[in-house]
């Protein structure tokens, strides 16, 4: 406390003495300001005084009377040094950070109000003023309002407050009072849509505060009860009426444009409503088909709508209202909580329809989740979906709802436990899970399996992994870190189950029960499955740091080193092991069936026929494509690792000043979530340092050429892939370019220029193109 006012005290005693002396000196003096005039000495009294009933209400001031001190104040301030503050003793960082900056267009909602301005009109006021029509709207007015409302929906889905976008439309305040049928039905549909969308997003629970404002002016919504089930019918009815009407007109185009918007709303609404109803539905397949049909109709309507955008009334230039009639842009500004004031930009109409078109495409893509009947492929689907559609909260929530209505079920009504059991069987087919096997009925074995899967469900680890993929990209990382820690206990349990099965097999063998023993002949099926998923989470966690731009360039070295040295290798070996197990079981089954057919029976021939195509399918090796892809990633990681080593050695990487640097701390922070795992065992900083020192021994030129070799390998692997997708093509380009750059550097190009190259992540989130400047 005294620190600021005492000349560097030589030690504590001196400081105390100095303070005591100061106190003595000051108390003897005649005070220039009395204590009461300067505020209170006791902070507690201060606090009480500030929050006390009298002082709490700022509107009661002035207590005494205003005295103008403008000049005095500025003169006083001018005495302060640059950067110097005069601050209240209760003023701290929190107060400083939470302050709203007045006259800042983003923060100050009160800005731009004119004293002469009338308050923004409410629904009733607008009717009284004649500012909004309730009946006999022209098609152009309807189109204008509909398009503006779609823009508001889009702006809401992009994270704005419902009050500041949707409820600026006065028609939404009381749709039942609108006389024009088309407008009334449309506005009722929008209000119901709000309720349904809120339900979906709240149910899926993959939203964060930056994605979506779940809460808004519920009083406005509550005024008229939502009846989502009736919307489809009433929209259809009004459409039919308008179509009939337009048939009698010479130029029906304007009315047809209205009809198209109503129809689009009808199908979009139906899709979203059906998604919400997924939880209560018996057959998800059927609903999914209907959803898909509705989506198709909706996407066919969008080009028609976009072509007729100019038929509607357009927003006035310089006005904040998205449409000239029916909107009162600032109506809720002053009712927002104080920390909330922001100026809102409502999306323009073409961009809004663009958004809706993309959203419909994303919904269609989400419907494909129904094909992914096991955990392995479902997880892959979710990871892909997050990469492609991660930015839209509704799309992400819809996918979650389509896949599992709640955490205990998958695909409609299938219990999650069943789903996981089935998934392991698909993944590496442990013999005990095969119902045809003689041990399947063994109650002891069944009990162990039951326990394991129940444990998986109770730990929530697997379901959580899928849910995490539904969050926005920036939030996934922290959640993955926590998930990875959870894997440890499940790994232990899986390993125990594996060894139990092995033990049982041995027991049966001892008993001389050969077929049973072979049936139980168990490799590390369950632990491989668990580990594989854990590795995936680890890999995504580590690489997401590049996407989120968390890593400094000098950290790249160990980030790429870990997957190169361990992680990708683990993934490849887990998959290879799984494939080999599957192949071995295949051969064994074939062998068995041969024995059976040799023993001779009519049905055997049939069996063999059935077995043949299956064998061919398996011989393609189910994980081949993924393994090849991981090989490419491995080479890319290796290339980046050695490239970073070479660049560091060459003095081209900016390193932190040693005074501020502790690489060990940074290393440990980066790999913190892995530290608690038993498998794979954590790699200490010392181990890493040894490996790096060894790698860094050759000359920079040699290192550059090693890196080039890795990139060349990556290129070869990627080129060998048939029908590569866009990601592979992008990686191929990265590998090619970096190969060239490394070769150039290896030949001593720009030897004397020690500039840090640019790392361009625009092609791929995880791997940069290295660019020399």
């Amino acid at each position, binding site marked *: 406390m005294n620190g600021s006012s005492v000349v560097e005290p030589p030690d504590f*005693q001196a400081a105390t003495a100095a303070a005591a002396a100061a106190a003595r000196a000051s108390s003897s003096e005649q005070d220039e300001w009395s204590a009461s005039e300067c505020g209170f000495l006791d902070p507690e009294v201060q606090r009480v005084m500030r929050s006390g009933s009298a002082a709490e209400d700022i509107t009661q001031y002035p207590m005494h009377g205003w005295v103008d001190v*403008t000049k005095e*104040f500025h003169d006083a301030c001018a*005495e302060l040094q640059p950067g110097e503050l*005069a601050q209240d*003793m209760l003023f701290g960082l929190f107060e400083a950070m939470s302050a709203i900056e007045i006259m800042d267009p983003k923060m100050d909602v009160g800005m731009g109000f004119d004293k002469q301005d009338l308050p923004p009109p409410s629904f009733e006021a607008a009717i009284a003023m004649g500012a909004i029509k309730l009946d006999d709207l022209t098609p152009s007015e309807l189109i204008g309002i509909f398009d503006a409302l779609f823009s508001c929906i889009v702006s809401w889905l992009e994270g704005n407050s419902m009050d500041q976008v949707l409820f600026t439309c006065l028609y939404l305040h009381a749709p039942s009072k609108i006389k024009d049928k088309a407008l009334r039905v449309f506005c009722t549909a929008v209000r119901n849509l709000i309720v349904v969308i809120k339900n979906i997003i709240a149910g899926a629970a993959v939203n964060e505060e930056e994605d979506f404002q779940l809460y808004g002016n519920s009083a406005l919504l509550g005024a008229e009860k939502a009846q989502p089930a009736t919307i489809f019918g009433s929209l259809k009815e009004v459409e039919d009426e308008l179509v009939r009407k337009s048939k009698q007109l010479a130029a029906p185009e304007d009315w047809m444009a209205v009809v198209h918007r109503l129809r689009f709303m009808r199908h979009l609404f139906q899709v979203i409503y059906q998604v919400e109803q997924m939880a209560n539905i018996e057959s998800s397949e059927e609903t999914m088909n209907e959803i898909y049909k509705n989506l198709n109709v909706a996407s066919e309507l969008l080009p028609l709508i976009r072509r007729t955008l100019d038929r509607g009334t357009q927003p006035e230039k310089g006005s904040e209202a998205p449409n000239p009639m029916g909107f009162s842009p600032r109506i809720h500004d002053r009712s927002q909580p104080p920390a909330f004031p922001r100026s809102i930009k409502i999306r323009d109409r073409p961009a809004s329809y663009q958004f809706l078109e993309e959203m419909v495409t994303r919904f269609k893509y989400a419907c494909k989740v129904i094909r992914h009947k096991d955990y392995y492929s479902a997880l892959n689907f979710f990871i892909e979906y997050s990469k492609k559609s991660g930015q839209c909260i509704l799309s992400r929530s819809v996918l979650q709802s389509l896949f599992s209505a709640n955490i205990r079920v998958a695909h409609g009504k299938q219990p999650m436990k069943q789903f996981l059991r089935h998934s392991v069987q698909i993944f590496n087919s442990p013999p005990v899970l095969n119902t045809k096997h003689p041990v399947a009925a063994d109650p002891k074995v069944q009990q162990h399996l039951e326990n394991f899967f129940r444990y998986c469900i109770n730990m929530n680890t697997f379901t959580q992994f899928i849910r995490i993929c539904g969050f926005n990209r920036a939030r996934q990382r922290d959640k993955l870190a926590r998930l990875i820690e959870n894997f440890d206990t499940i790994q232990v349990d899986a390993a125990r189950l594996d060894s139990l099965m092995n033990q049982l097999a041995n027991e049966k063998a001892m008993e001389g029960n050969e077929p049973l023993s072979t049936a139980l002949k168990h490799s590390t099926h369950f632990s491989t499955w668990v580990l594989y998923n854990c590795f995936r989470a680890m890999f995504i966690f580590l690489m997401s740091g590049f996407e989120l731009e968390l890593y400094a360039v000098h950290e790249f070295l160990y980030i790429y080193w870990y997957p190169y040295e361990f992680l990708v290798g683990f993934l490849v070996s887990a998959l290879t092991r799984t494939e080999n197990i599957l192949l071995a079981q295949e051969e064994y089954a074939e062998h068995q069936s041969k024995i059976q057919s040799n023993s001779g029976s009519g049905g055997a021939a049939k069996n063999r026929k059935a077995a043949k195509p299956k064998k061919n399918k398996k011989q393609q090796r189910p994980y081949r494509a993924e393994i090849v892809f991981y090989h490419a990633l491995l080479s890319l990681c290796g290339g980046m690792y050695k490239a970073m080593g070479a660049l560091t050695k060459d003095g081209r990487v900016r390193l932190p000043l040693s005074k501020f640097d502790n690489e060990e701390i940074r290393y440990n922070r980066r790999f913190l979530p892995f530290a608690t795992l038993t498998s794979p065992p954590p790699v200490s900083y010392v181990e890493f340092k040894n490996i790096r020192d060894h790698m860094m021994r050759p000359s920079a030129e040699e290192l550059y050429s090693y890196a080039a070799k890795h990139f060349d390998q990556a290129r070869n692997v990627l080129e060998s892939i048939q029908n590569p997708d866009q990601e592979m093509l992008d990686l191929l380009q990265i590998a090619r370019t970096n190969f060239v750059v490394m070769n150039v550097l290896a030949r001593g190009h720009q030897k004397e220029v020690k500039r840090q190259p640019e790392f361009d992540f625009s092609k791929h989130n995880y791997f940069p193109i290295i660019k020399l400047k």
Partner: protein
Amino acid sequence: MTDLSITGQQVQAQQFIPTEPFRITTNAPHQMNDVSLTPGRKKLQKWLGRVLRIVITDGRVLIGFFNCTDRDANIVLSMCAEYLVEGQEPRLLGNVMVPGKHIVSCCIDEPDPQSSLLVQ
């Protein structure tokens, strides 16, 4: 008890010399009667924690507790009320920072010298 220091070194009852320049002027007790403060700083110190009324360039009136200021007269107010028209219903803003360049005038709620705030 004359020797205060463990090291045995005699501590001088030295004159209280504040470091110059001050980085922070506060109304905290230890600084209240600091004689070395310049008159302007003293004035600011006196006003801290009091209620300030600021008129800004667009005509709004902000009334709140004076919390902090700097050389450019950027002012932080707490529990601030914003009046579009004085006398009408205000909107409560909480903490606000008013950039000095937008300040038209400021007034302080000057207490009657006779009645101390403690008594209220």
